[in-house]
């Protein structure tokens, strides 16, 4: 089993839970006039770091920035935020699944396949 993949999954889980936190923040401020939505990005830099090895994955920090919609405005959309939140939860669940499968493999190895 690859040591890098569990580190990678753990980092992605961190990023996703941070994204969830900022989704909650954006939704909580839905009635704040002039509020600018904040988004968390880490996927691209995680992909780059994965090519460089475990250490650069571990040093990676997710980035926060003001979100921009396709039309270029920074105004927040409640529906989009909720969709993003549920997407984040889905991805989080998928990663947990992958991690669980890895652990099941390790368990099989330890028990000698019995």
């Amino acid at each position, binding site marked *: 089993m690859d040591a890098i993949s569990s580190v990678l999954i753990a980092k992605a889980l961190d990023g996703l839970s941070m994204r*969830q*936190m900022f989704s*909650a923040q954006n939704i909580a401020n*839905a*009635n*704040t006039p002039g509020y600018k939505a*904040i988004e968390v990005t880490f996927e691209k830099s995680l992909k780059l770091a994965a090519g460089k090895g475990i250490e650069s994955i571990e040093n990676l920090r997710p980035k926060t920035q003001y979100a921009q919609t396709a039309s270029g405005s920074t105004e927040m959309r409640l529906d989009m935020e909720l969709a993003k939140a549920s997407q984040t*939860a889905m991805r989080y669940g998928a990663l947990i699944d992958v991690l669980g499968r890895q652990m099941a493999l390790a368990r099989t190895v330890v028990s000698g396949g019995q």
Partner: protein
Amino acid sequence: MEALKISMTGLDVEWQRLQVIAQNLANINSTRNELGEVYRPQRLLSGPDVTFSTLLQGDKAAQKATGVRVMGVENTPNGVRVAFEPNHPHADENGMVQYPNVDHAAEMTQMIKASRVYEANLTAISIAQQMYNRALDMGRG
């Protein structure tokens, strides 16, 4: 702050907003309050919960997840309208009575908006809960 706590601050603020709107609607005909003045419609002001020390850090500080908080409850401008009702016990010498200038339609709109945002916060809480539940499942199957 974690997602659940942030959504809870959102629930709290919208709840208080609903209370202020309900207060305005309930007092739509209140010509006197406990101070003997006409009731003035109020508006709840809210914004991201940023402390002074984080505010000093400038734009970067605005990008912290700290939830939302009530900034205050203020009287709306043009809060009084007068009507000619000489037989009203609260009429002045010219027969004019001061009424709160509650904009009924605007209050209802605000109320629907607040309740929608309240629901959105509840949904965010249940999504966060799903995530926590999945995390608890880790290594179980």
